[in-house]
């Protein structure tokens, strides 16, 4: 009979046995509707063929492939949080491991689904197993994603066992029979004695160490599917690390969104607290910087190389037909960086300066929007004549930059007071930005190929519906999972409490108090 802390019981266990409320059913219904719609669109695609999508020659890979890489990227959230932070001994990870591991598993499922959706003849998937060539990155991809998937499920399940046992033992009388049976089954007869705990710890530690290289290999190999071709813009050796960095980056973003959602809906402010947001935010900002470094290195190489086939791909991204998407991505990433970094650096007294107030931020943002509108959209001839002058255009872009910075400064104190909101804003920006980044990698290259004339790619309703349905599927799996299982790992958090209590009792004999000791309380302020 496993005991549980009464605080944990009210917050984490009771909601699982309560009958699902109206909100739950409404959400489940809405998501199922979107999935059903996606299902019908897929049926149409299955019957009428891939002509229903926008894909053609030479754009063999489109939105589905972008989604695939995007979802597999998001799946790196779990590994980072659970495994790397566990290995480095970061205690603050404890409340969020369950959410992270859940994201990984579901993102992997939905990601793999994208491949199947992308195939006109899904039955041919068996060919990879029957006739796969060992030297093909696609085969390696199948192997590594499968390995990662199995590893993630194990890594999700192992820490779940004690929690499920707790649920089994603490189920109220009114709990439905099927739920009790489910927990009893999944608990695998966990008794919680010392021997079992020791073995579980060992197993989880080993898994943690082994899943890190598997996760790194997954996104590396996916990137090598692109990099081992000679397509301009793809054949770049940086893709391996670049994709891994991007994956971890987008994974943290997804984690922010998911943990905030869980925190809000289930009222878990005691568990998923400021410390998680602070530390995860630091990681996020670092990954943002590293990602920006890799992106810059990538594009600068092509720009400096000026090779005949490579340069048009870059040009299409910088000022061609893919420019809006590219610059939107850059803006989103910069906004995310700003949203998390600047509030930390801002002194508390900044609010007294007029520029740092929301209304000025709004005014600035409005002005920026107006200038942007004038610069990029076609104007009536009288305005157009003025705007074609190089100097006025440059002035326009400079003004735009100024207004955007002003808006950013104005909104910073507001963000500083709301770290959770700032994190979510940054995370949403990054998640959208990373989807755009995948788009910018895949489509410009395919539409500007080496030997064939250039083409255009226009995603159709089918592809958009199936993307929406995939996201809805992800959401639904998430919803159902956290209705059945605790959103915070009960035993890990309890373990954390014990450790913190023990730590506070450790006394390291200090040398004689000296003047400088008083100074050392100050920590690096970021």
């Amino acid at each position: 009979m496993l005991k549980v802390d009464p605080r944990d019981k009210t917050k984490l266990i009771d909601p699982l046995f309560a009958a699902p409320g109206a909100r739950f059913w409404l959400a489940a219904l809405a998501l199922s509707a979107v999935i059903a719609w996606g299902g019908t669109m897929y049926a149409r695609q299955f019957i009428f063929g891939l002509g229903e999508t926008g894909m053609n020659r030479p754009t063999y890979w489109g939105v589905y492939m972008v989604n695939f890489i995007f979802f597999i990227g998001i799946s790196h959230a779990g590994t980072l949080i659970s495994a790397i932070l566990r290995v480095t001994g970061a205690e603050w990870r404890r409340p969020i491991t369950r959410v992270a591991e859940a994201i990984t598993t579901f993102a992997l499922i939905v990601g793999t689904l994208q491949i199947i959706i992308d195939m006109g003849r899904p039955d041919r998937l068996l060919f990879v197993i029957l006739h796969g060539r060992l030297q093909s990155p696609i085969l390696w991809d199948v192997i590594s994603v499968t390995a990662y998937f199995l590893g993630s499920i194990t890594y999700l399940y192992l820490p779940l066992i004690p929690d499920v046992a707790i649920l089994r033992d603490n189920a109220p009388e009114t709990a439905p029979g099927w739920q009790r049976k489910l927990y009893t089954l999944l608990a695998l007869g966990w008794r919680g004695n010392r021997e079992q705990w020791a073995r579980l710890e060992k197993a989880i530690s080993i898994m943690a160490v082994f899943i890190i290289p598997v996760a790194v290999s997954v996104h590396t190999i996916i990137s090598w599917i692109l990099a081992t071709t000679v397509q301009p813009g793809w054949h770049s050796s940086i893709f391996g690390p670049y994709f891994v960095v991007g994956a971890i980056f987008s994974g943290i973003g997804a984690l922010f969104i998911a943990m905030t959602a869980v925190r809000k809906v289930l009222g878990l402010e005691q568990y998923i607290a400021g410390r998680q947001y602070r530390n995860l935010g630091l990681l996020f900002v670092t990954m943002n910087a590293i990602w920006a470094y890799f992106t810059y290195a990538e594009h600068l190489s092509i720009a400096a190389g000026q090779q005949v086939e490579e340069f048009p791909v870059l040009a299409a991204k910088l000022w061609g037909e893919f420019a809006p998407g590219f610059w939107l991505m850059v803006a989103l990433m910069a906004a995310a960086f700003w949203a998390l970094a600047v509030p930390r650096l801002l002194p508390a007294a900044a609010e007294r300066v007029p520029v740092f107030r929301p209304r000025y931020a709004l005014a600035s943002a409005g002005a920026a929007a107006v200038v942007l509108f004038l610069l990029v959209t076609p104007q009536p001839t009288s305005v157009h004549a003025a705007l074609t002058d190089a100097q006025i255009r440059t002035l326009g872009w400079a003004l735009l930059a100024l207004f955007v910075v002003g808006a950013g400064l104005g909104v910073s104190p507001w963000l500083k007071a709301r770290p959770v909101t700032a994190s979510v804003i940054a995370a949403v920006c990054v998640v959208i930005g990373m989807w755009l980044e995948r788009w910018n990698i895949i489509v410009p290259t395919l539409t500007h190929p080496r030997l064939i004339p250039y083409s255009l790619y226009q995603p159709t309703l089918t592809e958009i519906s199936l993307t929406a349905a995939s996201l809805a599927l992800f959401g639904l799996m998430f919803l159902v999972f956290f209705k059945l299982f605790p959103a915070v790992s009960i035993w890990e958090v309890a373990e954390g409490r014990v450790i913190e209590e023990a730590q506070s009792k450790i006394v390291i004999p200090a040398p004689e108090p000296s003047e400088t000791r008083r100074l050392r309380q100050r920590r690096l302020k970021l």
Partner: protein
Amino acid sequence: MRPAASYHPQNKHEDAILSPLRRITFADRWLWAVLLGVMGLGAYAYSRQWIFGLGVTGLNRPVYWGVYITNFVFFIGLAHSGTFISAILRLAGAEWRKPLTRAAEAITLFSLPFGVASILIDMGRPDRALNVILFGRFQSPLLWDFTAVSLYLFSSVVFFYLSLLPDIALCRDRLTEAPLWQQRMYDLFALGWRGHPEQFRRLERVLDGMAIFMTMLVVTVHTVVSWVFGMTIQPGWHTALIGPFFLLGAIFSGTAAVVIALAILRRVYHMEEVLTVNLFNSLRKLLIVFTLGWLYMIVAEHLTIFYGSLPDEMEVFWQKFTGEYAPIFWLMVLTVFVLPLIIFVFLGKSRIGWMVTASVLVNVGMWLERYVVIVPTETRPRLVSTLMEGIGNYQPTWVEGAITAALFAGMVLLYAVFTRLFPVVPVWETAEAVEAEVPPARPRRRVFGAGRPR
């Protein structure tokens, strides 16, 4: 405003740390003499190069860059050790790094000038170095390189000096039996440091800020150095990965160099209490991560090239894997990955001897790696499709060897002299963080982002 003595935080290892400064042994003088001898030989070799021109080296067309540029990249890479330990680990809140910072930064300080010197040595007409300043084009990676490395050198000196400042004052106050010129030197460089708490507070703040700046600078410097190669379209050089590749390689070889320096200092100056085995274990974990990370990058690089099978690239590829440079390439793989990984993972825990062996192998291998990145590409350039007799070979001569030896000797000499004049472990930084050699009790006390439990 010259106080007779300033305040110094208590450090129970102060005597152990200051003891090397109190005498200069016969062994020291012998060492310095040998090193000066090697430098003399190098100077003689350079004089021959100055008089007879670059023909005395193995450089030719199309191999314009050889051992000298390898030295340049290698020394700049070594220099990243100090910044990594002092700045990056400082930002990460790794308290264990404190005893190491000065030893590591000294490596930075004394390898950077030799990196810069390598460039000047590489030039047949060194006076033309001024042309970069007078006529440098803004869009040239060489100019960015020049600017970045100069700024890095300058900032490293300042960062080093600032963290040395309280200890110079300590030397001035404690080393009363030192020769007069030495005492005057301490007096001058102490800049009237009083040890007031406010001064310490401000010093810490400035060091925190500089740590962020130096981190960005490290990334910039080594990336810009790599872009001198990466922004050309030479096969084997024109890869986007070259930036992160060189950066990780630099931090890797630098950390290994820190291990070597630390082991030598520990042994020669009897600092077993201060430079504990735990430090080596922490460095060991970092080195394992770096080795694996760098292995990952090398695989990514070569796999992409191999699968692309572009003819120009493959020429260089086969040069490295099966051609003229295969012995060096595979020796590099052995000494940078295979042997060090085996040693670090299986033999290195708490065994300093093995750690040093592996670190020496790593540094030798990294020098070879630089060589293997630079030279094979030049021997198979893009437009020389049918190589004429005698072109596409590179054979370093004794001049280059002697000068390389002289550069290493110079670095070691400066380092050795430094350790006899200034404390090599920061006394003021380790004042309350002195840990006894006790293995950390379970549960683990490492908390990400916080030095103390909240």
